[in-house]
């Protein structure tokens, strides 16, 4: 941590350290001149004459959109003999999608909606000739139910031919990036697909063994892990297309992937609220499904507004079968 809470650097008062992004540390801060609550990323600038460290701020400005984190200003400053570009941005008290996932269950509607938001921002960035190259839940900020793309630290201008140099987080990186060290619109699409996969399956912690596994490098991670039983085929299909090993078989644009996600109609937006206990509220109806254990029998009990719906209640002799049925019911009622 370079700075301490309470420290004032130029017109920025540091409130607390919030984490590290690509190439710099991020702090919650107050701009004392504007009296503005903000997030500030301090990017060490090796060569202030070339303005390299300012590029992230410039990309954020170039890609301004309601689903891209707003950049307020970039302050060139020096501290302890080191030059920095202090990128002053919108602050998000709710944090990132990754942080949200760590503390709460992400419903299918939330996961799809956030990915639609990110695809809007990506479509806009690509139209402005910018590849993001580091899309992942940790770089998606959540505010009032909507998602905004942040951290353009690895972003690059799409060169002629559409192929950029390699960059990104291995888990979310397409196989051709691992193989050829190349980034394209298709590698950004792959990263959104992996993000959707993580969110929709509520994967809070990736197994360490996977992070160095060949399944990441050859693009077969989804096949290896499979989907949670509650995830309907319609959603799986979109994820599978986005994360196809063959870049030419992925969505050709962020727009096409967004349109596929927009066509998904969530019916019952199930939320895990306890052990084998799920709920969904639709209009005035509160749907619940859970496993009740009595006299060594296990029953999946479905209730609507606290009244049993016997057509969806089933008794089993073991818990695994009961859970399988529960997942099947959720799977069949999640989308229209």
């Amino acid at each position, binding site marked *: 941590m370079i700075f301490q809470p309470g420290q004032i650097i130029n017109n920025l008062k540091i409130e607390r350290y919030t984490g590290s992004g690509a190439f710099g540390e991020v702090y919650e801060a107050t701009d004392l001149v504007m009296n503005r609550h903000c997030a500030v990323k301090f990017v060490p600038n090796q060569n202030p004459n070339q303005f390299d460290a300012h590029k992230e701020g410039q990309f954020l400005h170039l890609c301004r959109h*309601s*689903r891209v984190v707003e950049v307020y200003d970039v302050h060139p400053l020096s501290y302890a003999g080191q030059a920095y570009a202090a990128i002053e941005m919108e602050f998000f008290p709710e944090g990132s999608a990754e942080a949200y996932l760590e503390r709460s269950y992400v419903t299918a*509607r939330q996961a799809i*909606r956030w990915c639609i938001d990110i695809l*809007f921002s990506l*479509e806009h960035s690509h*139209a402005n000739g910018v590849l993001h190259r580091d899309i992942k839940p940790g770089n998606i900020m959540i505010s009032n*139910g*909507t998602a905004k793309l942040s951290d353009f630290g690895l972003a690059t201008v799409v060169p002629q031919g559409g192929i950029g140099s390699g960059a990104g987080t291995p888990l979310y990186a397409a196989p051709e990036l691992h193989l050829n060290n190349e980034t394209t619109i298709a590698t950004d699409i792959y990263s959104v697909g992996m993000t959707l996969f993580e969110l929709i399956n509520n994967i809070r912690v990736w197994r360490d063994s996977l992070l160095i596994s060949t399944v990441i490098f050859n693009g077969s991670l989804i096949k290896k892990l499979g989907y949670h039983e509650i995830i309907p085929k319609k959603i799986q299909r979109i994820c599978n297309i986005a994360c196809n090993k063959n870049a030419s078989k992925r969505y050709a644009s962020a727009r096409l992937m967004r*349109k596929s996600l*927009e*066509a998904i*109609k*969530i019916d019952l*937006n199930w939320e895990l609220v306890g052990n084998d206990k799920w709920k969904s509220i*639709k209009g005035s109806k509160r749907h619940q499904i859970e496993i009740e254990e009595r006299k060594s029998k296990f029953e999946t009990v479905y209730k609507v507004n606290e009244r049993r719906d016997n057509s969806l209640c089933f008794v089993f002799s073991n818990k695994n079968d009961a859970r399988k049925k529960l997942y099947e019911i959720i799977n069949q009622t999640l989308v229209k």
Partner: protein
Amino acid sequence: MTGVLGFSFQKAKIRYSLLVEEDGNLTLASKGKIDYDADLELPNLADRWSLSLNEILDETKPNLLAALQVYDSDTLDTAKFQIMPLTSLANIAFNRNLKLQLYTGQSLRSGKPFGLDPKTRPINEVDNIFGSHPPYWDDFQRKSVLVAWRAYREA
């Protein structure tokens, strides 16, 4: 070149069609539909309409907007999905300094404003004049063409 973007609204979908005039010829340059999650809460719906409509306007860059206006709301769905999205469109039109022409269903029934025989139903002539463009080429989609067509004639 003049581009007129016409809209018609229905539950969970917004239909749009872009008519372009070049050298005196008016043609259907593009058409599409915006799908949205109708179960979102109203503030989120309004945000979604605004986001999607802005994106379509960025892409099609029209000079003029036109929309089907529903004024008799006898169900909540009519109010929510046919009238309220129009407010988002009107706000966008204001911000972009674009004129927005509104037409009721009634005003699209006579052929006269379209330069057709007054007894001709204009919606029946859409395919003859602009061609048939499946998929989702139905009367909702044709109405988005109709409003753009009429707005073009009045511009």
